[in-house]
């Protein structure tokens, strides 16, 4: 009865979905006059560890941990969620390579809630024990390490590891055998490629740089995207208009923040049908991405209020909620 192995997990997620923030709750947070009141509001909704003096960062980090704790608790196969944990893992690799090569001091530069926590990653990189790393990490780590050591080019080091992360996400999606995870991974890589094209265009990067940075995926052609990026921003929009990311082309014309919001909203749109599934991993993925989206939105509101942004400027960056 393999199709029923998610029955318990999905039912539990259904119950938990009741606690997710709706668009109306987000409006209520936005309506709070100060950042302190907004923070208090989310604490009253049960967010954070319960400590009265908890600050925004630790509260939001705790919420992220809680979301992962639920998934680890209910998921029959946690490896299906690698597509979501890889960004943190590869971030740790990037931070460890930079720290090992430059010796730059840095506090809190690592994520601890992933399969290889910061200090362990740093030890692997410092001892050059790259073979201990999983998947495509050994090759990427060695190349990035040597590149940074010989050229001192931090950006190139980032590009090499980021690309390896995108390839790992895409491969994990393909291997998962779950259509929704495959779609999530493919969309993640496609959106990252579009971001690279837009930023490379703005900063006048070469085709070679983009080829190095972009990872192949199903839903867009990196060759055509690179050609479009070299031809101009309008050409990127024109190319995207003929793909599944036509909405992104419109958002690009509006503003960079509108494009970033569109990227997250697009993922939410992909996930929304999972609210009606009962026997698949989809609702678990939908819940986790929904939680991450909700945490990101609350962070945008709180930091916006802390920095005195007007409500309209914050509202423009607010993401669509999963429920």
């Amino acid at each position: 009865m393999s199709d029923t192995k998610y029955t318990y997990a999905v039912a539990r997620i259904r119950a938990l979905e009741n606690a997710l923030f709706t668009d109306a709750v987000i409006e209520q947070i936005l309506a709070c006059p100060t950042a302190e009141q907004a923070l208090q509001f989310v604490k009253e909704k049960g967010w954070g560890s319960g400590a009265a003096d908890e600050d925004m960062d630790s509260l939001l980090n705790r919420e992220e941990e809680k979301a992962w704790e639920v998934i680890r608790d209910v998921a029959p196969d946690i490896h299906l969620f690698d597509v979501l944990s890889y960004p943190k893992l590869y971030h740790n690799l990037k931070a460890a390579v930079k720290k090992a090569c430059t010796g730059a001091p840095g506090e809190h530069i690592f994520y601890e809630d992933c399969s290889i926590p910061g200090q362990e990653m740093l030890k692997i990189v410092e001892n050059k024990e790259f073979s201990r790393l999983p998947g495509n990490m050994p090759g990427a780590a060695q190349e990035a390490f040597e590149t940074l050591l010989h050229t001192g080019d931090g950006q190139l080091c980032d590009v090499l590891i980021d690309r390896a992360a995108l390839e790992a996400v895409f491969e994990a999606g393909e291997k998962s055998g779950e259509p929704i995870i495959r779609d999530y991974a493919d969309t993640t890589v496609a959106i990252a490629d579009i971001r690279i094209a837009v930023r490379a265009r703005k900063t006048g990067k070469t085709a070679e740089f983009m080829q190095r940075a972009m990872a192949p995926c199903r839903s867009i052609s990196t060759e055509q995207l690179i050609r479009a990026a070299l031809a101009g921003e309008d050409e990127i929009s024109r190319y995207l208009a003929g793909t599944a990311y036509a909405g992104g082309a419109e958002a690009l014309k509006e503003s960079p923040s509108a494009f970033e919001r569109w990227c997250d909203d697009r993922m939410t749109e992909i996930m929304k049908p999972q609210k009606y599934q009962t026997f698949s991993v989809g609702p678990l993925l939908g819940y986790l991405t929904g939680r991450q989206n909700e945490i990101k939105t609350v962070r945008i509101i709180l930091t916006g209020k802390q920095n005195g942004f007007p409500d309209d400027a914050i509202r423009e960056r607010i993401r669509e909620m999963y429920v």
Partner: protein
Amino acid sequence: MSELGIVYALLGAAVAVLLSGTGSAIGVGIAGQAAAGVVTEDPGKFAKVLIIQLLPGTQGLYGLLIGFITLSKIGVLGGGLADLSVSTGLLILAACLPIGVVGLLSAIAQGKTAAASIGIIAKKPDQFAKAMLFPAMVETYAILALLISFLSVTGIQV
């Protein structure tokens, strides 16, 4: 007296009870997993999800009913075994098949529908009546099979 006749008739009773009982066990199990998931997060919904979990259990009872009637008819329960020809034994076996087969498949399908309905209870407990209706629709076909098995077994002259 042909011994094969009584063997076929007993096999009919066994098919009715075994298949429908297995279906119910699987169906109640599936719905039970969903119920446990909801109760883990919200124990206040225990009574509602329990009722829905029990719905796929009826097929097992229908199979048991047909099994009892069959055993009674062939004299296993009454004390003296009836003298059954092979053709009568096979007729009884055939009469037991509808509730056996339909009971097995409908209970599994009902278990899955019940699990989905438990999802409704998790999110909208006030929609309990509607949530009950979806798995109850599957019950229709188990009842039809029960009816045919019942009429057939009681209609066969021993």
